[in-house]
């Protein structure tokens, strides 16, 4: 690629802007990939028109290959907006990128007319045009993905908050029903929540229920043991409940020993154990 080659593209865009726009819109409307269900032809015209005028303005600087330069910012901002709104409307990333890629045909046709029989110049022009439009198309795909990722990260954070409720079962008895995967970051939140609530309520017993934890491997076991030890240091006794038969067998094979930690099959068993320890008796009312 020859850097000193002066592309005709900026001049071409300025000279034929209206023609290019009409040809481009026609090509988009004719394409079988057009989502008529999601995009009206008025919207299509508006975004095509805006993109083309922004592209023309950015191209006048003559820099067609460095999209990191400030003159390309308006184009990128516009595309990011298009990409985000289309993502939320239900377009796929390829459909969004096709919006840019479909501009190749009208542009290439014009370039061909402009260069005439000069095939060397045509090759150079086509290379520049295709590189530029590919980069812009990929940029829309990247924006699409990063907006998706932002949503996923947000949801993960919300899950962290949601999934660690500490509930008071009785005066002095807390319960922590764990549900789902106990990876390190979640366990950290769980542990902090539990210890904090122990302090706030002055509870003597904390029941950690793992009925909803599908896999208890050595790391999960270690996290549980650490939580129990920390609670014990603060004067609260932990009871681990909800150990299902398959989990119990697996833990025995793994060699995980809970030592002197009290474990119970169900939350009800754990509660009745805590009652007994606290000297509370539950009686059915006699008539």
């Amino acid at each position, binding site marked *: 690629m020859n850097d000193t080659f002066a592309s005709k593209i900026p001049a071409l865009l300025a000279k034929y802007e209206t023609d290019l726009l009409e040809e481009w819109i026609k090509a988009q409307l004719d394409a079988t990939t057009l989502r008529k269900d999601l995009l009206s032809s008025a919207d299509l015209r508006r975004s095509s028109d805006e993109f083309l005028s922004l592209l023309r303005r950015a191209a006048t600087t003559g820099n067609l290959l460095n999209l990191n330069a400030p003159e390309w910012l308006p184009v990128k901002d516009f595309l990011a907006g298009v990409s985000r709104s289309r993502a939320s409307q239900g377009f796929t990333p390829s459909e969004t990128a096709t919006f840019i890629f479909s501009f190749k045909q009208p542009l290439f046709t014009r370039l061909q007319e402009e260069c005439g029989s000069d095939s060397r110049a045509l090759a150079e022009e086509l290379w520049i045009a295709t590189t530029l439009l590919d980069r812009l198309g990929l940029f829309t795909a990247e924006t699409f993905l990063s907006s998706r990722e932002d949503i996923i990260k947000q949801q993960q954070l919300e899950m962290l908050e949601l999934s660690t409720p500490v509930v008071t079962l009785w005066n002095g008895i807390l319960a922590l029903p764990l549900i789902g995967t106990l990876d390190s970051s979640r366990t950290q939140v769980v542990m902090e929540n539990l210890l904090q609530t122990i302090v706030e309520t002055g509870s003597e017993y904390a029941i950690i229920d793992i009925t909803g934890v*599908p896999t208890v*491997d*050595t790391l999960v076991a270690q996290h549980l043991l650490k939580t129990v030890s920390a609670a014990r240091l603060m004067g609260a006794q932990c009871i681990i409940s909800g150990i299902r038969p398959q*989990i119990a*067998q*697996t833990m025995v094979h793994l060699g*995980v020993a809970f030592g002197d930690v009290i474990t119970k099959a169900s939350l009800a068993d754990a509660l009745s154990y805590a009652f007994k320890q606290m000297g509370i008796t539950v009686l059915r009312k006699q008539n």
Partner: protein
Amino acid sequence: MMNNIVRREVIPLLSDEDIVRARKIVRDWTISLKFSLVDQTKLVTAVSELARNTVEHGGGGSALLEMLDDSIRRGIRLTFEDQGPGIANIDQAMTDGYSSRGSLGLGLGGTKRLVNEFDLSSEPGKGTRVTIARWK
């Protein structure tokens, strides 16, 4: 006897999310082979241990899942591979209670007890490969 590979899948193991994914896929496979609940849990737990080793000790790698059928029985074989620092002393690493980083130290020895076949090969500086299989 020849093992026929009925199904095959490669799972990249680079992050905690990949460990969760590996567990989920293996769980689905064990269900499709009608493993008992205990056998499902054992294999999934073994996968969890080895996948975490691959991510944390091996600096990332991959797991190859194969569903086997030797005409008498069906099973699942998994091969975990990484290009990490490797294990210098395999006997020590397999010993219960030995840990290189303050964990319970039951991962490898425990995993071996959870599966029917277990094979570990490692070369310091080159990486580690663990192959396990569990038959129905």
